[in-house]
């Protein structure tokens, strides 16, 4: 199967701090991978680097066979990104926000696409309302609709469940599961592994910027994973464990 994403020895330094060190990662078409790790483990850095928002300090990335350092536009046209922030303009309505992004992506048939994505996330009746009146859950759904507008082959999500209530999380997880079923590759960072375990292929655990574990999702159970994560953190905080 063809690789959607291939990262080799990826490192990123911010000022005087290595946020990411020598991470290898591979994603095949249609796969879903969950990134796990404590705050500051490097999950966001890995995702922003993959999303072409930050250049790697060292290492290589290849997405859909392209090097983002050379042909970034081609990579971006195939990639959807859901960040901490919504990337939405508060003063614009749901529909206006999506139409704006559709134009930035140079899409045709904008009205139909926007309408379709809005109804998929259950926001068609709020289409003309400004985003400033939306709840966190509605914003997150709209943000997902934005990321899916151009039918990306790769979806990158940075803690999409943060701030959502239980039904909100369930709805979002169902939406992602459907996308995955339609063949979209997904990589997401989360603190709520139980939401994604049922449909993820692999789990990658980061600790202090390094990849410390990568296993099939089936090896984790939806209750015991949190304890496992603490064990990893304890193992690697010994001086030998972090020494380069």
């Amino acid at each position, binding site marked *: 199967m063809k690789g959607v994403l291939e990262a080799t020895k990826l490192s990123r*330094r*911010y*000022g*005087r*701090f*290595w946020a990411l060190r020598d991470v290898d990662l591979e994603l095949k078409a249609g796969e879903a991978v969950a990134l796990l790790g404590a705050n500051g483990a490097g999950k966001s850095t890995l995702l922003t680097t993959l999303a072409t928002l930050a*250049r790697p*300090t060292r290492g290589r990335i290849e997405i859909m066979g392209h090097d983002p350092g050379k042909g970034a536009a081609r990579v971006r046209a195939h990639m959807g990104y859901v960040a901490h922030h919504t990337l939405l303009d508060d003063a614009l309505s749901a529909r206006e926000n999506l139409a704006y992004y559709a134009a930035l992506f140079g899409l045709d048939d904008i009205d139909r696409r926007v309408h379709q994505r809005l109804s998929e996330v259950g926001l068609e009746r709020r289409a003309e309302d400004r985003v400033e009146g939306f709840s966190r859950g509605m914003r997150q759904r709209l943000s997902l609709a934005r990321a899916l507008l151009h039918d990306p082959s790769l979806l990158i999500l940075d803690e999409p469940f943060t701030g959502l209530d239980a039904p909100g999380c369930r709805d979002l997880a169902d939406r992602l599961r459907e996308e995955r079923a339609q063949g979209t590759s997904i990589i997401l960072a989360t603190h709520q592994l139980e939401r994604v375990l049922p449909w993820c292929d692999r789990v990658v655990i980061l600790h202090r910027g390094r990849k410390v574990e990568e296993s099939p999702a089936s090896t984790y159970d939806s209750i015991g994973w949190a304890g496992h994560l603490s064990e990893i953190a304890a193992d690697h905080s010994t001086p030998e464990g972090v020494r*380069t």
Partner: protein
Amino acid sequence: MNTTNRILLALSALGMVAIFAMVFLILPDDRAQGFVQKIFYLHVPCAWVSFLAFTVTAFRGLRYLMTKDLGHDRAAAASAEIGVLFVSLALITGSLWGRPIWGIWWTWDLRLTTTFVLWLLYVAYLILRRAIGDRERRAQLSAVTGLISFVDVIIVYFANRVKATQHPAPVIGGGEDSGLPGLFLFTLLLGVFTMTVFYTLLLRTRTEMAAIEDDIEDLWLAHS
């Protein structure tokens, strides 16, 4: 210190001694302006080096944008630091010269204004560098700023040319009777040469130092 730097150091030291010998011992005083005119042999080389330094900053910035090689950024930054030093010297020596000749320390004429704006632009460039912590981001944004500043200096020059000027007309190629007698021209060219060599030495040393600073930071990071 490597061989090239030794040679550059020796050349600039010899050149400086030679200039001072010419100025104090050999050249006669200027008929109209007297001894004070001889600051010219320091003033013009400093001004020349400051423009050269900022051209190098812009060029290395452009190279950084093309290659993303941080070595270019270090050289661009070093050149800007040295440039600020020389442009300050040019402004001070010019002021010292202007006071007895024009009767004023400062006037807003063509070359003075251009030089002062040059100083402002590159001080802003250095402030920008200090305000960004991340190495790659600093390199990229500084490169853009260096390029814009460089383009701007050229426009500033033309803008001021539209206004009248009271600065002495160019002594070389400025008109029929503007040529310098051989010995004077020799001293001027010697000054320009010496200062350029000295600039090259400073640039090389400062760039090497910046590379070492980065290496130290990397080592410190690798073991933290």
